[in-house]
């Protein structure tokens, strides 16, 4: 069952075509909840990337040993294990960032995106392809989170990565918790608009 895509194509697929946040609209909770700064998005992105890559590789390695009847429990167990690992590592080495992310690191275990990738990709494809796919998905999630964080941090507190760039606070509203919904909604609409625009243009030229 060889995969005809190259590794770079798999990564690009996760970042652009099947971006977990904007295109697949999965794992929205952290996208709304803690995307107040770029740094938060980056840290959670790292955690998700780690869990996604590790689980994909693990499942891909043992895919022939998994009994079909206990497929889902095995996925859950794998994900939970890796989430526990990253949770402990972050708590030990980056306590400050960990405190900011609060409960969301532990909640990675319930993220639909990871289970979905295991079910759709890792349990069929070889280890190498699963690794690249996991990397792409994780990066896609990370970039999505960071984009939302960028918009909210810039508009809410006039800063990027904690550095004051604007010198004033344009709209405090964006840093308020409920603004996450608006930012995600508006950005989705924006991406839709680009897609529609692009298709229309293509349609005219061809």
């Amino acid at each position, binding site marked *: 069952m060889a995969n005809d895509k190259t590794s770079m194509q798999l990564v690009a697929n996760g970042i652009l075509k099947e971006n977990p946040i904007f295109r697949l609209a999965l794992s929205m909770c952290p996208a709304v909840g803690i995307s*107040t700064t770029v740094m938060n998005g980056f840290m959670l992105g790292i955690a998700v990337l780690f869990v996604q890559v590790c689980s994909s590789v693990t499942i891909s390695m043992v895919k022939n*040993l*998994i*009994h079909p*009847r*206990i497929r889902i*429990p*095995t996925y859950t*167990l*794998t994900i*939970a*294990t890796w989430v*526990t*690992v990253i949770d*402990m*590592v972050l*708590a*030990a*080495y980056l*306590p*400050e960032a960990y*405190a900011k992310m*609060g409960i969301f690191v532990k909640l990675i275990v319930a993220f639909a995106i990871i289970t979905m990738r295991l079910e759709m990709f890792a349990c069929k494809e070889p280890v190498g392809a699963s690794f690249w796919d996991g990397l792409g998905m994780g990066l896609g999630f990370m970039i999505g989170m960071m984009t939302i964080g960028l918009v909210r941090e810039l508009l*809410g*507190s006039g800063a990027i990565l904690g550095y004051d760039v604007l010198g004033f606070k344009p709209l*405090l509203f964006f*840093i*308020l*918790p409920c603004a996450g919904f608006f930012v995600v909604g508006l950005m989705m609409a924006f991406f839709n608009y680009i897609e529609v625009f692009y298709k229309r243009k293509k349609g005219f030229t061809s």
Partner: protein
Amino acid sequence: MRNIITIIVRLTLSCLIAAFVIGLCFVLTSKAKKHNEHVNEEKVIYSLLGYKGDAHPPESLKLSVLYRYVVSDPHGKSIGYLVPTGQGETTAFSFIRLDLDGNLIDQKQVAVGAEDAVEQEGRDKAIQAALGPGAELTYADKTIIVTENGNRISYLVTGKFPGFKTFVSVMLALKPDFSVRGLAILEQEEDPGLGAEIEKDYFKNQFIGKSFETLKTLDVVKEPIPEEYLKALESRLQKEEAAKIREQFKDHAIYALTGATISSRSVTNGISGTVKKFAYRLNILDKVIKDQKIVVPF
């Protein structure tokens, strides 16, 4: 039937592997976690005392930690303090028990190493052993007394009180006359953008310099912070100028955060209550230590 057995065997096997991975990770990280927590706490303490970044605290600076317990035994409740005793390098600890009126009940040697005293588990065990059975211990809080060449220069007090949403936990640095020297917010879960601004300099620095008398009746006003005061609080001015402006607002009420008056008020009241309780307790403890001629490093 065979199917079920294979399922069970495989599931057990995967559980075992998972447990092994998690356990290994736990063993590897738990030490680092404790170490980092300790380092973090030290960083907060030294930055409160004014040694930020590369500025290393002098050798003569010494931290003595007092642990306060509430002891319940058949005779009623009493307050116990675990204090280091002896001059210089402290190796011995005493548990001083006071009744509710502030009179000494007894003083017992506690056999605990300086390293073990930091960890709650080892400390509790040692005190329990010294008190004997029948007494029930409840850990209350800890206070750090900072001395330089034997003179007290600061107290570090921790406090925890309800904020707007959940609890706010703070560490205060006080001067020997109980005026505020510094404030650090250790934990809070207020709304970002609103209540969470209590962590920002322009709010928490307002407490610096407030005297004990002012703190007792400290109020919160819903007014915008004057521009020059704001600059001074965010350390955007020259030192002398900032000090002058701060002096001017020394006894002024706390300016509430915009949109988070309740958070501001609960922090203000919480700090005022923490300092009042601490001052009351320390005076009693000091009197007992003096009367009993207990040799302490602070």
